[in-house]
């Protein structure tokens, strides 16, 4: 025991002070589109072809004015962060975004186009979180349906380095005590029923977070016979955290977004009987 104490005293506090900082190189992060660039159809097509998960679609402008439909869209909800698009993009309009504030409350916000603005780069957590329904504290039940890297990152968010507990985020063993169901993985057929039961066991209002590309869209598994097409096919999802797997800070960011949700967004009384 004494040895442990000495070690802790010698090494001091390792908990990161800065909340949801951007990552340092060589971390890859997620791709982002440089705003306002004029994509040629050829460049867009090349990026789209490179993407292993069809996250990029080259829009067909069909002779209309460039403002009609975006030349290209990049869906972070399908992106596994392989950065192949960045390597092949001939015009350099795709760059690495190392921000960890990647969670969104609307699925469509994950679909980037050359016209979309960069996500929030400024500090928002903690104090602002206090405004929401679960602003002071929130209990999270994690359900894993994926490949365990996402789970390890969720677990890491609670280690002494990231220490999610200091923001009032608690892990709970029972869905009965949970405000949030945080689901990782693509939720194949085998997990549909357990997920529904866990959700039904939660008190209202309740929030569902889809953490990781698989949970949002099925990722590399989408369209399989196992119907592993993401949590959205089974439960109503409120918060989306992209990344394969998402960084622990991104997971904390997602949970903080849940804390900020106003009452009407937290789906009081929403039931599975009418999805």
């Amino acid at each position: 025991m004494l040895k442990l104490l000495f070690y802790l005293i010698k090494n001091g506090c390792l908990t990161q002070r800065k909340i949801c900082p951007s990552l340092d190189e060589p971390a890859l992060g997620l791709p982002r589109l440089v705003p306002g660039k004029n994509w040629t159809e050829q460049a867009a097509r090349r990026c789209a072809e490179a993407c292993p998960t069809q996250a990029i679609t080259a829009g067909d402008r069909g002779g209309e004015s460039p403002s009609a439909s975006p030349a290209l869209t990049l869906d972070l909800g399908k992106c596994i962060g392989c950065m192949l698009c960045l390597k092949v993009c001939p015009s350099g309009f795709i760059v690495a975004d190392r921000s960890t504030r990647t969670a969104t409350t609307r699925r469509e916000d994950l679909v980037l186009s050359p016209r979309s603005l960069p996500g929030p780069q400024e500090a928002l957590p903690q104090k602002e979180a206090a405004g929401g329904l679960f602003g002071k504290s929130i209990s999270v039940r994690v359900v894993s349906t994926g490949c365990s890297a996402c789970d390890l990152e969720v677990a890491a968010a609670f280690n002494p380095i990231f220490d999610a507990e200091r923001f009032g985020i608690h892990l709970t063993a029972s869905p009965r005590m949970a405000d949030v169901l945080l689901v990782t993985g693509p939720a194949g057929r085998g997990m549909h029923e357990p997920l529904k039961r866990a959700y039904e066991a939660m008190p209202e209002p309740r929030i569902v977070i889809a953490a990781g590309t698989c949970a949002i869209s099925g990722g590399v598994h989408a369209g399989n016979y196992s119907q592993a097409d993401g949590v959205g096919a089974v439960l109503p999802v409120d918060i989306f955290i992209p990344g394969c797997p998402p960084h622990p800070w991104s997971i904390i960011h997602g949970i903080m977004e849940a804390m900020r949700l106003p009452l009407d967004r937290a789906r009081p009384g929403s039931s599975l009987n009418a999805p």
Partner: protein
Amino acid sequence: MRLACQTIGSEELTSTLKPLTATDSHRLGLLTSLDGRQLVALVLDLKGRTAGLVRCELDQCHYSSLTPLIPQAHWFERALKDLFGITPAGHPRLKSNFVPEAFEATLAPLRSAGDRGKLAGEPPRDFRFLRVGGEGVYEVPVGPIHAGVIEPAHFRLSCLGEFICNLELRLGFLHRGVERRLTEVSWPNARFVAEAASSDTAAGNALAHAIAMESLLEVEVSPRARHLRTLALEVERIAMHIADIGGLGVDLGFLGVAAGLSRLRGAAVGLADLLSGSRFMRGYICPGGVTLAEGGRLSQLRAQAQKLRRDVRGFVQMFLDNASVQERLTDTGKVSRGLARDFGLVGVAARASGIAYDARQHFLHGDYPPLAPAPAVERGGDALDRTRVRARELETSFSILEAVLDEEFAGECAVALPQALPANEAACGIVEAFRGELIHLIFTDARGRISRYAIKDPSFNNWTGMAIAARNNLIADFPVANKSFALSYSGHDL
């Protein structure tokens, strides 16, 4: 490595495979099928450091089970029934490896596209639990959703008083159809799917995939790529062994050490990040080499690894020296050497039971076998010995890191690959991942596309070990025994 194939008749199956798997120098690596019309066995020759295929055509949907004579085939034959609809007649404990809901009971997802749905009059998958009878026996169901942040599975414990008589495993909740998806994507993209089989073993999976692909494409990677791959594999082992010992600390209630180890795991993951740009080394190892140059970060890596080594040593020692830890782990979740051998356990679990098998000594991957350490073998086969094996492997992994960092990093990160895969070939990649022997086996068809991709995660062998280990343990020790195996659910369920 490329694989030669020996074709035999179905009546010779047992007589051919039995002598090949009954010795300490051979193992049954995989037993599966390509499209449901044949059996294919991958036999590993540990002494000769090679592997070969034994193939037998089936004209019906059943054959006589190998398990009674070759227990290593036990779990594979269940999977044959589930995924191909082939019935191993006379299998002593035939039941589904997957929950009923994972896919329709009448579907055989890996059969050839034409006859997937209809199972030619064969009985559908069977899910019955083994019931333990007798007065006072009661059942404790656990899962699929567990209390912690871990993967789902259902355990049914039949208990008498405080003791577990039998553990029934129900896996398959995470079945995503990885193996079939791997035959649907274009081969350059297959690596992303192969990694997602179980991303806590991303480096291991990617390496097994890359080795199999490189043998098909007949490319050889540069020494630099070889060294970087070795670093990746060992960093993964370090990070996960720390996590697994720490996890055991949580289950034992030794929270100080558990918290310490969880922050050290953070440091180990930092090494991975430094090496590859991804905390799980996703997308790092690719056929042909690695995707990111080390760019002068190796000295930083060395310094951080040295500090980490000292800290880890201190914490692990604190853990193993603790009297209550020893008391709790000794004789918990025991697997005898004989059973471990018969059922073909691999990795940490096998070595803890006295089996000196470490794939790094036998098969080409990264800088192995030349740099392979002696297997860390213990005798007792209990949770304490599994922890000791992990502790010793942490030390050797750090030594390997240093040895590799002393090498010269010559050559390019990745060599260019040919455009097309060869037709009608088979190759496999065998890697000692942190849980044990991991095999990726790839077959191509006449048009040079991947026609069958089989993955054998170490957990596939070791879940049997877990079921054996639980018997006659206190029910309160079940989580400890389970954690000491630290098996993958997604790697098994695929």
